[in-house]
């Protein structure tokens, strides 16, 4: 993973621009903030003062206001830093959106640990696992700013429940092909599924290996048929799942997709067994969770064997 350079719009900037464009043309669209990112929408607020709603540092209210807007026929976008969007007001997400049977577009920033100097309070590796406890959510975990635009525009035009998980980190290039799994590399020994911002690390870790590498930026609904096709084309039904959030979050979906096949699954992601009380850089935390290229390569070799010769 690399950090997006100054010349490339970040996911956050792309998000603000795309939402603003939608607000200029679609009177249903409103954005609800809890102070965070208010500056990104300051100009928009001048044009649409009733549709840029900053509730202050009140995240329960932020989500509920989104629900109330939807009940009034609006298309709310609710946005904050990940833990304060998904974890703190989780009951509001469950009841004021899902249980009311209304939709919203939830957009988080901060990835799992984009800013480790802020510590555990600003990390949210469990966001998608939490949303998995609720029905009806479409979830995108883009790996590049360009992968954000299409699903965000579709979400803004819809009326369903959509979560987009943004990060300051990015792959060097976009890989997504719509909402289905993209095939980045083809091989025989097994299938590695890289999600979002893990793709470049997975490609580096599997350089020279005889494996198929799949890529997902849209994780719910999970493209089970796409995974089945890739597994069927390989010699063995061995799957490595690499996610930039809580380890094994999508494992039930892999199991469901391959339910009638004897298969093996190894899940990589943010570790569940302990909290890492450490600051440093995102790369430090990649290493601590085994999500750096070396850690991913070690885990894949241990799981698949060493089919490629000296290096593999």
């Amino acid at each position, binding site marked *: 993973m690399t950090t997006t350079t100054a010349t490339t719009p970040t996911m956050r900037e792309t998000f603000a621009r795309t939402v603003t464009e939608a607000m200029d043309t679609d009177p249903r669209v409103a954005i609800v903030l809890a102070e965070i990112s208010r500056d990104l929408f300051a100009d928009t607020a001048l044009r649409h003062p009733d549709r840029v709603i900053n509730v*202050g540092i009140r995240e329960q209210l932020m989500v509920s206001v989104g629900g109330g807007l939807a*009940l009034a026929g609006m298309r709310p976008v609710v946005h904050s830093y990940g833990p304060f969007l998904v974890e703190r007001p989780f009951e*509001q997400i469950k009841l004021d959106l899902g*249980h009311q049977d209304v939709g919203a577009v939830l957009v988080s920033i901060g990835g799992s640990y984009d800013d480790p100097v802020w510590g555990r309070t600003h990390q949210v590796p469990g966001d998608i696992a939490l949303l998995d406890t609720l029905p009806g959510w479409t979830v995108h975990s883009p790996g590049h700013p360009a992968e954000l635009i299409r699903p965000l525009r579709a979400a803004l035009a819809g009326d369903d429940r959509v979560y987009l998980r943004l990060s300051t980190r990015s792959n060097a290039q976009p890989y997504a092909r719509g909402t289905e799994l993209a095939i980045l590399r083809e091989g025989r020994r097994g299938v590695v599924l890289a999600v979002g911002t893990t793709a470049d690390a997975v490609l580096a870790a599997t350089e020279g290996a005889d494996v198929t590498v799949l890529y997902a930026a849209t994780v719910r609904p999970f493209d089970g048929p796409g995974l089945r096709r890739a597994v069927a084309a390989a010699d063995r039904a061995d799957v490595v799942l690499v996610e930039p959030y809580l380890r094994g979050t999508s494992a039930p979906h892999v199991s469901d997709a391959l339910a009638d096949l004897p298969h093996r699954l190894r899940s990589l992601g943010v570790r569940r067994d302990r909290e890492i009380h450490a600051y440093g850089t995102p790369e430090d935390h990649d290493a601590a969770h085994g999500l750096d290229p070396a850690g991913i390569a070690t885990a894949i070799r241990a799981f698949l064997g060493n089919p490629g010769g000296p290096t593999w």
Partner: protein
Amino acid sequence: MRVDTGEKRGFADLPALITRMTGDEKHSAAANSTMDVLWVLYDRVLDIAPDRMADQDRDRFYLSKGHGPMAYYAVLAAKGFIRESILDKWAAFDSPLGQHPDRVLVPGVEISSGSLGHGLPLAVGTALGLRATGRDQPRVVVLVGDAELDEGSNHEAIALAGRLGLERLTVVVVNNFSGTHGWPDGIAARFAVEGWAARTVDGRDHEDLYAAFTAPHPGRPLAVEALIKPGGSQ
């Protein structure tokens, strides 16, 4: 007993409608504490009717205190939103009426509630949405209980609604003094200090309730504290 004759119902019919539902005793007092407020709202205040549920210019009523919804269901039945016959099967698996209302199941129910502290924040959002779409007539009226105000989410909503001057938002706090820790200096003061117009009335007095709901409060949201003697006897 009449069944779905379409005959016009009055306030005096509500106790009989409530007795068609069976619930645990815990909810009975709560149901009765809201009966007068609900009747005044649906009979005289809210611009709402069964055939207007798709009309974006209708008033909204959000029952936030979803516990003890029997009086609510009775009023909805009396006003023709639901058939009286469904009261008899309440809380059964295939009944639309549960001990907490579900807007997906019940015509006329605007929000699903049960967990406390959700209705007022939702209502703030709806008031903002109506304002953003240029609808300056519809009211959004929320009913909360005094103990429900313990939930911090309400205070996020009270502060913001006051600052934004959401005139079309009304909260009625049915105060039967059920909170353990109480509200020194009164509930109305909590709203007033945040910029709301706040009125305290007898929660059984229909004329006082009507006046409190309908007197102007320009530029401010309205809080009506409806006092109910502890026990909610009827």
